[in-house]
């Protein structure tokens, strides 16, 4: 196994380069090349960062969910580290989903925030991420922290399908799904292609961020271990 303090591995490096190229291209496409919807006008371009951020925030919790189950089955800390690494980026992407949605809402609805079912369930996801990271930060013992984290990761994931179905279960201001719907997608290809490209770019970026964050977590763990060993040797 390579040391967490070693330089970035090939996966981290290459995913970083590909993510950078794709995000730059996607932003350019979204800002300058893509046509806009006749009704929504220019602010529709926000969709090209808002929707990918939302999908990645759900993907990040799915990663936590799977890694948490794997951890509880195997008790291998490798899975706990993956879940922890995904949570930080998940929190950022969920925050960006709320912020970009809020900016769009201010233009389209005239308010920064409303207690709409979709908005509220995404805000709950943000809180779940925050609580997950907070609980982890409060526990020193590795196995205990991983166990608590795994239970929270599994329970917390329940919010993701609730977010998806919220626009069908309750009357909401937020529009229903345009792509992930039971029948065929309701979006013009000129808009859907850049949206899917940006989603792919954000997913590659997320993969890069998880690998990079994992290296930081492992380095922190090495430091804590070395510190404890030294204290033990010096008889403190």
């Amino acid at each position, binding site marked *: 196994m390579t040391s967490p*303090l070693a330089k970035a591995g090939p996966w981290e490096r290459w995913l970083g380069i590909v993510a950078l190229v794709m*995000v730059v291209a996607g*932003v350019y496409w*979204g*800002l300058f090349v893509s046509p806009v919807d006749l009704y929504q*006008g*220019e*602010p529709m*371009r*926000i969709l090209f*960062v*808002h929707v990918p*951020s939302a999908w990645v925030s759900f993907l990040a919790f799915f990663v936590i969910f799977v890694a948490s189950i794997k951890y509880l089955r195997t008790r291998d800390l490798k899975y706990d580290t993956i879940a922890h690494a995904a949570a*930080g*980026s998940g929190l*950022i992407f969920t*925050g*960006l989903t709320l*912020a*970009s949605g809020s*900016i*769009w809402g*201010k*233009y*389209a609805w*005239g308010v920064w925030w409303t207690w709409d079912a979709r908005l509220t369930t995404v805000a709950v996801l943000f809180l779940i991420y925050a609580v997950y990271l907070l609980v982890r930060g409060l526990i020193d013992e590795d196995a205990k922290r991983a166990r608590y984290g795994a239970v929270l990761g599994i329970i917390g994931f329940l919010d993701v399908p609730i977010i998806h179905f919220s626009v069908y279960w309750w009357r909401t201001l937020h529009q229903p799904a345009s792509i992930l719907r039971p029948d065929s997608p309701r979006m013009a290809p000129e808009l859907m292609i850049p949206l899917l490209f940006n989603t792919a770019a954000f997913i590659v*970026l997320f993969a890069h*961020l998880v690998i*990079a*964050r994992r*290296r*930081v977590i492992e*380095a*922190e763990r*090495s*430091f804590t271990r*070395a*510190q404890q060993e*030294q204290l033990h*040797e*010096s008889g403190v």
Partner: protein
Amino acid sequence: MNPGSDPQVYVWASYGLTIVSLAAWRASMWWRLRQVRRQLEVLHEAAGGVQ
């Protein structure tokens, strides 16, 4: 719609916030790794001094 304001402002605010936040998050990892590396070096130097 909010007719009194420039729609471009909303678009640039969203893109700007997204890009800056993601770049800052990545930079924070780089900074933290550098900090842990330095702490480990100090720890090893201190251990060498004790021996």
